[in-house]
């Protein structure tokens, strides 16, 4: 039986992970773009990204593009696995079986 993930379950973090999982495994998304897409503030997005990074679900890379500082985010393999399990658990709940948040 799949387990819900307490870190991913938080609505904003679920949205962040959903967006990152939509990309190919070798693609990183720009911080500003993610902030606009999810309609979040810098601080709010930053705080949730830190949580996800601490859990090892995402990797944050700070770099320079055209001499401007730029932050890119990518979902890790661990993050993709955790997200898939979380989604499986949600589907089990919708289908009627009980699931606990780990």
């Amino acid at each position, binding site marked *: 039986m799949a387990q819900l993930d307490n870190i991913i*379950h938080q609505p904003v973090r679920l949205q962040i992970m*959903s967006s990152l999982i939509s990309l190919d495994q070798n693609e990183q998304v*720009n911080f500003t*773009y993610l902030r606009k*897409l*999810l309609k979040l503030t810098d601080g709010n997005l930053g705080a949730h990204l830190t949580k996800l990074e601490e859990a090892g679900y995402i990797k944050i890379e700070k770099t320079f593009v055209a001499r401007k500082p730029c932050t890119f985010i*990518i979902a890790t393999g661990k993050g993709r696995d955790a997200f898939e399990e979380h989604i499986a658990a949600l589907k089990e*709940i919708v289908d*009627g079986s009980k699931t606990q*948040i780990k």
Partner: protein
Amino acid sequence: MNISQEDAKASLSSVRNVMGQTHKALSSAYANPSLIMWGLLWIIAFTITHFYIAYAFYIFMAMAVAGGIGTAVIFRVFHSKAPVKETSSNKLSPRITALWIFLCIYIVIWLFLFAPFTGLQCNAFICTAVMFAYIVMGLWFNNRFMIVLGLAVTAGTLVGFYLLRNYYCLWMALVGGGAIFSTGLYIRLRWR
């Protein structure tokens, strides 16, 4: 801690929404400028060719050169502003470029193999070959708009070739160029 079925449904719905938004926004960022440009080029080239058929070869050569330069400029401009970048291990852009270069080489080879042919046959062949590449790219990026566009313009080309020979160029300007331009415009306006 348990969550209700309603909460689980809402979470899954939110996931689907964000994934759809991300996919559309990224497709929009890359696809629309080049589709709009190529659509306009098709409209202009086919319309001029209808009235000056003797210059068809030069008109389409000019279109190909302008389109190639335009595409390179668009990708260069958009690359620096791209919201998504690839990690160094597996870059997609060179493979897309390679696909189009190989397509051009193979079109030339096939034209030599199939010669002699009429101008109409040559044009319909190149149009359908290019649309085949659109379908391949659609399958590659999981972008159904590219697949539908490729199939629709291919069907339009066949209709023009077999049923509307006297108005083939005007038909292709309207159906081919119009479809490519409209798709680019639709993505730009609706997927933002």
